[in-house]
């Protein structure tokens, strides 16, 4: 059962502790550990209820592909949560970027990688635009990205109608179906075949690693976190806070574009509906993983685990023949329960620690 959690779990280090450990907090106060236990319990529960949950080809491989998409979606939100900002347009940024990818494949016939780069550039560009508007005007990020979401919602549909006459591109760039259907088990060197992990998983792991390293080791990432934690102090320490805001939003757009690409690969089509389901999961994953909305602290590993938890619940309940709407009920309840427990744990931990921050 380690298959779908292991890649992310081993790959991405937690980028920053939610609060500085004054005197080493007890182990149970680590939200990531709690998530891991909940995931393990749910997986055990689902597999005992329906053996189909452990089917490697029909369940586990698609599950890993889904987790990859939503972990990257979560990272896209995390990139701006680090500032204490929000990106309400995360889904529509993905939609616009995948439109650019589809257009490049369709009209220019570019190879898979080039189209991806075009999409990522568009995503980063639109993200940077949002960041620029926020930094220059000082308007709340929620309002700016909400307005942007409205605008892009219209724009994307208009663009698709203009370019395709419908809602999706018919083009299938070579290599897309491999990303969609193949797992490493299809590639053998002699007798030795890879594990049954879809090809999209390493892309998500690489993204998580990159974001984790950025926020933990890179100067840019640390400066973004400091800007999020205390903009005035950051400004006074000589950090160009405006540029850091733009950078964080550009990163968010870039990751949204990547998530859009992964979803397009999973669905096998570049269509206007990509990104419609991104908004809620984009907050679920980082928040479940212990990232605060206040900014200044992020947890990349937590985000990956949060995405895993939500997708395990979706998949499990789906196999148990729950309808999509019923799923939402339980996801919401799990979110509330997880957050309340987290709060309780934090309170208890603070009581134990000598000087809580």
């Amino acid at each position, binding site marked *: 059962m380690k298959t779908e959690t292991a890649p992310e779990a081993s790959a991405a280090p937690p980028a920053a502790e939610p609060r500085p450990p004054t005197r080493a907090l007890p182990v149970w106060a680590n939200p990531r550990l709690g998530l891991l236990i909940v995931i393990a319990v749910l997986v055990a529960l689902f597999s005992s209820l329906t053996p189909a949950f452990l089917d490697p080809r029909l369940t586990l491989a698609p599950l890993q592909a889904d987790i990859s998409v939503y972990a990257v979606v979560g990272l896209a939100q995390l990139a701006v949560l680090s500032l204490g900002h*929000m990106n309400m347009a995360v889904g529509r940024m993905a939609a616009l970027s995948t439109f650019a990818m589809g257009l490049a494949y369709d009209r220019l016939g570019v190879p898979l990688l080039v189209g991806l780069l075009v999409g990522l550039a568009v995503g980063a560009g639109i993200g940077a635009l949002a960041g620029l*508007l926020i930094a220059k*005007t*000082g*308007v*709340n990020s*929620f*309002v*700016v990205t*909400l*307005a*942007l*979401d*409205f*605008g*892009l*919602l*219209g*724009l994307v*549909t*208009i663009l698709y*109608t203009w370019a395709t006459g419908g809602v999706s591109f018919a083009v299938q760039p070579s290599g897309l179906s491999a990303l969609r259907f193949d797992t490493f088990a299809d590639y053998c060197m002699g007798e030795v075949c890879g594990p049954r992990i879809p090809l999209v998983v390493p892309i998500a792991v690489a993204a998580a690693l990159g974001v984790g390293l950025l926020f933990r080791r890179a100067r840019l990432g640390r400066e973004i976190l400091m800007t999020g934690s205390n903009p005035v102090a950051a400004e006074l320490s000589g950090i160009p806070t405006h540029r850091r805001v733009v950078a964080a939003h550009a990163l968010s757009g870039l990751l949204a574009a990547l998530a859009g690409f992964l979803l397009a690969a999973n669905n096998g089509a570049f269509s206007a509906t990509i990104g419609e389901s991104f908004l*809620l999961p984009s*907050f679920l994953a980082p*928040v479940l993983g212990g990232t605060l*909305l*206040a900014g200044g602290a992020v947890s990349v590993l937590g985000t990956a685990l949060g995405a895993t938890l939500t997708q395990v619940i979706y998949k499990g309940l789906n196999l148990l023949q729950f*309808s999509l*709407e*019923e*799923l*939402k*009920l*339980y*996801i*919401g*309840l799990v*979110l*509330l329960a997880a*957050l*309340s427990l987290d*709060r309780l744990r934090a309170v208890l931990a603070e009581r134990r620690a000598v000087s809580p921050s």
Partner: protein
Amino acid sequence: MRSLIRTNEFTLAVIAALGFAALAVATDFNLLTAGTLDAFLRFLALPIVIGLAQMVVLAVGQMNLSVGVLTGFCAMASGWLMIDAGLPAPVAVLAALALGAVVGLVNGLLVIFTRINGFIVTLATMTILEGLRYGVNGTGTYQGYSPGLREFGQASLAGVPVVFLLAVASAVAVALFFRRTVPGRHLLASGGNPFAARLSGISNDRALVLAHTLSGLLAGFAAVIVVAAFGSVNASIGDDLLLPSFAAPIIGGVALAGGMISVTGTVLAAFLVRLVDVSQSQFDINRRWVDLIIGAVVLGAVLLGQFRDKLSGGTR
């Protein structure tokens, strides 16, 4: 007089009047015929109330993401009460209002007891309510309920739809609440500066709970309008209300940080959005252009407000 002209509300009122006049001329005064005007105002009721529902939580610096879905849930619940439980319409109406208020109360209590950001709490309750809303009747539609209620939804008083008058009445009530009553002033004080409010003996927790309850109540009221005016309800009601609920107060000049509201601005902004909507149907424009335009208007309004604040040197 000058101070009046420089207010956000005045700008909005001028834009609304100009827009309305322009649209009337462009449609060869079709807009002013009884039928069209009636429909214009009838479907203006919902955006006004939903905008107010969001505004009351913005007043304390909170957000309520569940407002649209809650409207849908209350509408479905009252449909269930009338059709499946066979209760009379007044009971169903009161139940919708009570249900909205109770869900709002739960939102508020969750916010103060868990100390989790209201955005996240209502995100979670929104998800839960989406499931519940669907659970009432699946994908089925409730229609053919109480003829009296539907007639009420179509009724007009001196040429003005009753539901629109009700929406305006609720706006007046909300305005009076914030302007004249002690709890209303407490809400604004708490939203403006929680620390100062606490030192003056105001309970911030109580303000949060009250704001969320009021927001839920208004969402319940919006559900009553939907049930009465639309004539049928299904589980998709409320899906397209979340963004307009923010658009109206934000265009209307309500600060997200809390402590400042504008009922007139919110109502005028709802009017403007409705104006864009009607132009779309009158001229057969692609529905998507409307979203694009509203997005641009929201952003423009915010930038304009920022610009004006800078001009007046922040002496607000």
